[in-house]
């Protein structure tokens, strides 16, 4: 039994051991070159582990007495999380070494948070969820403040930590309420109790608090206020990581939480999600207009995108779930492109993050400017780029389940949101003459930027071919 569980969780275990090895090697070697090698090694490790996961036949396996469930859904998310983390490590190397931040701790912390996220994705018990959540969060608190000499970075780390602690508190309170009223922490068991006894007020309140904690993780309004400050203050590679990977893990975990233990309380959590998604979409779009810092802007952009993804979850059907997965996938691809660019926004070796510094970038490097514009337009959801189809799938799922008002708000907020996306494109091509950005860009970032641009353009032909696969995952996930 134990052996089976260990085998099933071997990727997580391997990664945990690996991260400890990183710490040990890093502590004892003390050379800069070792830090660099550890970073590349971690990239390789991520790829290797994702390969292992990818090669495992997808089957519904429970490990550690039902604390973890390994299915196609968790497999898919784990692979995306691992590969994204690896890519982000590779992309951030140049930035980190420029600011003298390339320490082994960075790799180790990323590895640990990835372990946490892998646990989150497959957790099937409130305790396991909390374990993963905290492992992930604690690592993230530290890397948010990774640039210790920067006031902003420290502030970001501290804010994130305090508010994160509050959200953990909310989550724990909710979890204990649920445990108190159902007598169990296992997902399947909770679901059984709700089916048998109905949704008691205690469990309902527990659900609300749990969702509050989770909304913090996906940065849904009104649990989002940390996002812009942390995105702005953290070193850009960390922001990149924040914008992409924890979002994926949190959405996956949220989906499992909603559909498995509270699958029999759909009508209740739908009301909460409607509130969260509407306010996220609107505030994300409206607030983004006022931003002058591109990292803050991307923070609001992510808030608004999460609002759209939440529509898909609200729908509560397998169509909605697969729309969410596709939407997040597209979101990740576009964000990679944008952050590959932001990581390299610099003037005379100093990083800049003003939106206005994009002015006339098209004259610095027309190809990159075009790629970036395509990606931004895809984020705005302009047809025929793939971002448009992401929204279409979400809206279609919502309409098919009768959530028309949600779609109307979504449409409105994407119109509002289009303003600030278009303004960026406007600046790139028609901005005022000012000090332009520097022209150099590391090879890997160039590759990511171009690939992302090609993907958002060509992806609309067949959505990277994942559509059928995703719908299989989500149907089996919902049983």
């Amino acid at each position, binding site marked *: 039994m134990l052996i089976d569980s260990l085998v099933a969780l071997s990727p997580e275990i391997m990664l945990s051991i690996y991260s400890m090895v990183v710490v040990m090697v890093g502590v004892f070697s003390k050379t800069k070159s070792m830090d660099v090698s550890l970073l590349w090694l971690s990239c390789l490790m991520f790829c290797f582990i994702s390969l292992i996961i990818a090669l495992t036949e997808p089957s519904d396996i429970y490990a550690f007495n039902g604390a973890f469930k390994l299915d196609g859904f968790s497999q898919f998310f784990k692979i995306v999380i691992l590969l994204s983390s690896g890519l982000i490590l590779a992309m951030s190397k140049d930035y980190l070494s420029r600011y003298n931040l390339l320490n082994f701790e960075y790799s180790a912390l990323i590895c640990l948070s990835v372990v946490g996220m892998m646990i989150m994705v497959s957790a099937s018990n409130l305790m396991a969820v909390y374990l993963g959540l905290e492992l992930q969060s604690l690592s993230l608190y530290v890397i948010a403040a990774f640039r210790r000499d920067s006031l902003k970075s420290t502030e970001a780390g501290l804010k994130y930590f305090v508010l994160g602690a509050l959200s953990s508190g909310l989550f724990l309170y909710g979890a204990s309420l649920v445990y108190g009223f159902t007598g169990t922490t296992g997902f399947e068991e909770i679901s059984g109790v709700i089916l048998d006894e109905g949704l008691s007020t205690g469990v309902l309140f527990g659900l609300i608090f749990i969702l509050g904690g989770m909304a913090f993780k996906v940065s849904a309004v*009104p*649990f989002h206020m940390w996002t812009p400050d942390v995105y702005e203050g953290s070193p850009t590679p960390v922001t990149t990581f924040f914008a992409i990977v924890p979002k994926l893990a949190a959405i996956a975990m949220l989906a499992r939480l909603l559909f498995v233990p509270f699958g029999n309380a759909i009508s209740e959590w739908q009301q909460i999600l409607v509130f969260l998604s509407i306010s996220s979409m609107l505030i994300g779009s*409206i*607030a983004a207009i006022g931003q002058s810092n591109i990292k803050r802007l991307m923070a609001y952009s992510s808030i608004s995108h999460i609002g759209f993804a939440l529509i898909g979850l609200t729908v509560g059907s397998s169509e909605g779930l697969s729309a969410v997965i596709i939407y997040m996938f597209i979101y990740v691809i576009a964000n990679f492109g944008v952050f590959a660019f932001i990581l390299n926004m610099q003037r005379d070796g100093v990083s800049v993050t003003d939106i206005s510094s994009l002015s006339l970038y098209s004259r610095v490097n027309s190809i990159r400017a075009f790629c970036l514009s395509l990606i931004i337009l895809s984020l705005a959801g302009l047809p025929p780029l793939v971002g448009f189809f992401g929204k279409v799938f979400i809206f279609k799922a919502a309409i098919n389940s009768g959530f028309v008002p949600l779609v109307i708000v979504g449409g409105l907020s994407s119109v509002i949101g289009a303003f600030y996306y278009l303004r960026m494109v406007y600046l790139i091509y028609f901005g005022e003459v000012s000090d332009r950005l520097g022209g150099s860009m590391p090879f890997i970032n160039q590759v990511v930027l171009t690939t992302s641009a090609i993907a958002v353009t060509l992806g609309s032909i067949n959505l990277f071919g994942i559509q059928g696969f995703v719908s299989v995952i989500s149907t089996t996930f919902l049983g």
Partner: protein
Amino acid sequence: MVITVLFLPLLGAIIAGFFHPIFGEKMVKFFASSCVFVGAILSWTIFLVTDFSTVEKIHLFNWISSGHLNVAWAIRLDALTSIMLVVVCSVSFLVHLYSFGYMKADHNWKQSEKYEARFFSYLSFFTFAMLALITSDNFLQMFFGWEGVGVASYLLIGFYYKKPSANAAAIKAFVVNRIGDFGFILGIFCVFISTGSLYFDDLFVQAESLADETIQFVGFKLNTIELIAVLLFIGAMGKSAQLFLHTWLPDAMEGPTPVSALIHAATMVTAGVFLVCRMSPVMEFAPSASAAVTVIGASTALFAASVGLVQNDIKRIIAYSTCSQLGYMFAAAGVGFYQAAMFHLFTHAFFKALLFLGAGSVIHGMHHEQDIRAFGGLRKKLPVTFVLMLVGTLAITGVGIPLSYDLFHYSIGFSGFLSKDAIIEGAYAANSSSGLFAFWALIIAALFTSFYSWRLIFLTFYGEFRGKNDDFLNAHEPETTMLLPLLILAIGSIFSGMIFYNSFVGSEANDFFHDAIFNHQNNYILKDFHYVPAWVKILPFFAMLLGFFLAFNFYVMNTKAASKLAAQHFGLYQFLYNKWFFDELFQLLIVKPVLKIADIFWRWGDERFIDGFINRLSLVVIPKLTSFYARLQSGFLFHYAFGMIIGTTLIITWFSFP
């Protein structure tokens, strides 16, 4: 084969339109013209070789499939299609050829400007759209072609887009056509509602039963088949410039002359006639609609001919003549004599294109002077053009040997004589009140036709030259590429009637058309028109002669008499000269009120309401919200924590009130 005919011009249009910077103007002109040339050769082959005992349908691809609406792109090849193929491709090719010379060194453009490739591209595109229209198997594809030719016509009328008058004429043509198209599209809707399909065949099969059904239309209960027929005819009226929707055609002469010959004489304007003939299974069951077609057609023939009597612009005279001849065709179709309508369409294409291109030669030779009052005595300067235009005039006025069919059992005469007389005799043979009205109207129109045609010839080619002397000295025959099309058309104008008389309206008509044209079992017009009284057969001939002598008297013998007569009947002259004041009437009754309403919608509806709302929302409300939000995002940790707590509290409160 027919697929090649259909798509070659499109290829030509694309190459000429988009690739002329690569291949050069000369090359693309040549390419586009040879595409149409191949099309013309193939369509003559189809016309002469194929026997159309069965309707050939070629499925190309599925176009729209949505619910009950299934439309494919398909070609319907029967006698009607084939006649139109021949007309469109041949005239189009000749016009392409003619344009080589005519469009060279156009004075409307500067030396450095390139415009020829654009012109040829439009011409080829027009040809494609027209072919799509005539080969269509269903209403939607036909509508595609219908609108396509509309666009091409718009582009070509406004070809000299630097001239305000050309732009105005282009817009006028488009807008007036929209009214017709609105009727057409309503007709298509009606067809879809009542048959559930857009295919011709489905409608034709159900036509008889639909004659007994009614349909609710703007509050009235109307006979379905009559309504469909009338609505489709309104579409035809717009395209074919019939009375009330005719005003765009004379103005369309702002376009280059080859365009007038191709689009506004031989092909596009006959699309309406083609539509009515194509719909013969519908029209046959809609007697009231048919009567309306007859009356409108005959009235147009008379009206346009009367206006043509006094016009001075050489192209406008021919334009009114076209309008009038189209009226003949509709009158024939209205009395159930679709064969004669198609016959006249066929012959008219030759002689009208000939007249237009001849007029183009005159205009070309006279340095773009178009006023016939400034011409005179040109037969010495332009002998070839003169002879060829004379042939055209003999054809349109209807010169031939009356009663030749009865005497020799073979009709002898210029093409216009045979087809026009068939129509007039058919109108009489129809033996209905509308037919009789049409008969007399058409006889008078024939008189007028003869008069204005000869007037044009006499004023242009006879007498003393009345323009600037330099013009006369410099007047010259055009080059061979321009004369060759004229020659071919002249041959067609002389012989096409005699060669094809039997196929179209004679003894072989039924074997020629087969199912393409449907005649109700009580419709014997195809036989009856041979047996009308002799005076009916001779009357048009005398009308023609009378017109000739009047014109001869006024413009050759007694040149002062015309202006004296005009002065005596000043009111009548002004009435005719101002085209029965149709334009002024429309301006007063329709254009001005519509402009007023549009102005209200624009200022209040659009500027104040829609723009005002959107602008206020995006310039005032959203920025306010943004700055309000910026204050919330204060940067203080306790505010953020407060936000989270408030959020949770809100949700809990929501659930606390069931």
